[in-house]
């Protein structure tokens, strides 16, 4: 219940304030969002398997975001920013698909 309320409040605030992303954060926000999505999908899977833990979710969410941003930052410093962000996206995408597949198997048994 509380996550749903939080989601609604977050989307509402974003729509209401229409803030612009600071220039220094612009390369990191998309990657951070994908990393967070990965954490959320993983949490959903854990929820389905009844082994969801708030603490694990919080830690994985934050560490995912921080590590993804750090990798993009490092990539930019090394001059391989676009390749490395592509790589991060691919990896996170694979994880999201894997988790989604697990959820699907659990729900539909297929």
């Amino acid at each position, binding site marked *: *219940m*509380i*996550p*749903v*309320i*939080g*989601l*609604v*409040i*977050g*989307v509402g*605030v*974003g*729509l209401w304030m*229409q*803030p*612009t*992303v600071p*220039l220094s954060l*612009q*390369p990191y*926000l*998309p990657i*951070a*969002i994908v990393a*967070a*999505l990965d954490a*959320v999908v993983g*949490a959903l899977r854990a929820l389905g398997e*009844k082994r969801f*833990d*708030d*603490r694990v*979710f*919080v830690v994985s*969410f*934050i560490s995912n975001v921080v590590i993804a941003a750090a990798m993009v930052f490092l990539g930019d410093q090394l001059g391989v*920013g*676009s390749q490395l962000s592509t790589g991060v996206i691919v990896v996170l995408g694979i994880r999201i698909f894997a988790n989604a597949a697990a959820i699907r198997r659990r729900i539909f048994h297929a």
Partner: protein
Amino acid sequence: MPDVKGPLARLRRWSTPTTPHLAVGVLIGLLGFGITVQVGQDEETDYSSVRGVELVELLKSIDAANERLAGQIDDLTATRNDLQNSTQRSAEAEQQARKRAEQLAILAGSAGASGPGVVVTIRDPEKAVSAGQLLDAIEELRDAGAEAIVINGTARVVAQTYFLDDEGSIRVGGREIKRPFVIEAIGDPDTMAEAVRFRGGLIDRIANVGGTATVTEKKKLTITALADVKSPEYAQPTS
């Protein structure tokens, strides 16, 4: 984790705010906020997230477009200049045509005229001056360069004007001219006065038949009388 025994207990577990629950809610809220912000960001044109290679491609295409548009500007400027020139030329042609029309109107007697000239006054109490002599006087003035001539202020003398004796008076182009005759002619005053005064000229001839002729030079004469302009019935312009 508390054991889950039924829908009620599950609901309670879901709806009881604990600190980790709140943290999860805040994180999810942050995620929603971030997605919303990023999606809104994408609607603006922003190149800071575009990578160098793409920027180079973008720059190339913009350069090409720039060049194309510069070419278009050049073409259109040339066209505009051409049009302006042709407008100017036709305006000049129109002005010249109007000027020529005015000159022809003076020659044809369909417009008034003003300028320096002479006034020749012929008095003949014995009515001895004939139409022929009057025509001679006009010819004398024309010979001296008269450009517009009017007799008695009413009869404009042009190419088609005829002179006719008519029972003691004279008709000029159909108008009856009463004595004394006052011929106003626009042209070079000195030359025309000279043409009238020379020995054996107009003044002498008028004196021979018992009249008097005087000529006065004027700095400015204004002729307002117009000739009756007929459009030619038989003569067609050849070109």
